[in-house]
């Protein structure tokens, strides 16, 4: 069973979101997603300052197998993109919930309630299995 931290929120498209408590959110992909994709070899992140809509494709992760779109879980402004991933995309495989985060948004954290909690995401994984 893949690792699902309780404090995070999740999307059906396998992103996770962390509420940083200061009006900003951190976004990454789940352990399940990195495992299914295989070794990542390239990550393309959104530019800082870009306004993204909820569910908008705004990043791409490419594994040895294929390229996959990453969707912004919420509407907001991109305030940071993980600078370490250009040189070391495998960080996403190694630490999907930690150093392998993708980007940060300034967004309304109230909207987080609409996303899945860990149990809800676990159920979608079971349904897909």
């Amino acid at each position, binding site marked *: 069973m893949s690792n699902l931290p309780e404090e995070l929120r999740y999307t059906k498209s396998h992103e996770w979101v962390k509420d940083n408590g200061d009006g900003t959110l951190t976004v990454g992909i789940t352990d399940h997603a990195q495992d299914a994709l*295989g*070794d990542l*070899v*390239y990550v*393309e992140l959104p530019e800082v300052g870009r306004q993204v809509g909820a569910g908008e494709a705004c990043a791409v992760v490419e594994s*040895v197998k294929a*390229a996959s779109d990453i969707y912004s879980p919420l509407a907001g402004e991109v305030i940071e993109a993980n600078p370490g991933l250009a040189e070391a995309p495998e960080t996403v495989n190694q630490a999907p919930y930690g150093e392998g985060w993708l980007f940060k948004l300034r967004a309304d954290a109230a909207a987080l309630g609409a996303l899945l909690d860990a149990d809800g995401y676990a159920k979608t994984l079971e349904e897909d299995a």
Partner: protein
Amino acid sequence: MTSKTPLFAEHQRLGARIVPFGGWDMPLHYGSQIEEHHAVRRAAGLFDVSHMRPVDIEGPQAEAFLRHLLANDVAKLKTQGKALYSCLLDERGGVIDDLIVYRLGAERYRAVVNAATADKDIVWMQAQAGAFAVSLARRDDLAMLAVQGPQARALAAPRLPVAARAAVADLAPFSAVEDGAWLVARTGYTGEDGLEIMLPGDEAVALWQALVAAGARPCGLGARDTLRLEAGMNLYGQDMDETTTPLESGLGWTVAWEPATRAFVGREALAAQREDPARRRFVGLLLTGPGVLRAHQSLYRGGTPAGEVTSGGFSPTLGRSIGLARIAPEPAGGAEVADWTVEIRGRQVPVRLVRPPFVRHGRACIEP
């Protein structure tokens, strides 16, 4: 319904991610495809390639039949055990499959063909065999393991039957030794030294376990693909198929034009295409901008559409994205334009044309 090799339970036990490939359930990787790739370049990796299909060709006219059937010439195989890579062509010169053929005796050969194409290959071979005194036999009783890497031969030798054990130390590249029902060949699909071993299916698990215990790292089809791509080797169905000829697929070197009297299937069509200035070229690609090359991306010469990526991916050895591509010839009288680009997600990304292979025997063969 997919087939399973005799090693399927081993793959499951080792935690492989299993994918369907050519009608077979095969391991994609056992954890990290990139680490498996490096193991083959640096030490030794072990592949289950039992989806590959051996076909024995026997009879007084076996050689004459193969000289008719194949674009390369088995008359080059002067001694027992020698092997040859060839395309199997239709009358239009289209590639039905690519294969390795081993000479096992004066009237006995073995071809090893691709999994997905085996059924149509055998139908084609039977149809071509008509007037020849030959018999064809599928060897579905055999499994096939590939042990590849700089340490592969030394590591595998003690695990082989006695006669093969003595022979592999001196075995020349592209040669094989037969030992009972085993055929041990110094061939592969990785650009490294190593062996491909055909053996009875019920002996495959014991050999697999012995090789793993000796230090060969289990590797899946994912690493097999990046290794062959770095080695500049084509993949059937991706880099060439029935709609393309060997001359448009970087495989002109496998067509034996001499002797001119040998009338192999597809010869006339290839001879005509050989003189055609509009014939497409086959090249290697090194992505110099960001992203990853993938099959079917479009290529542009000076902004004009001029070809397509046939295979693309990330090269773990070079740390860069590489590919193979089929491109239009240079415009008549025009100078070669240096600025090639590939379209990735709607953007033009610079790419450099290079001559494969990219990597051989653990070393880069191109300027980074």
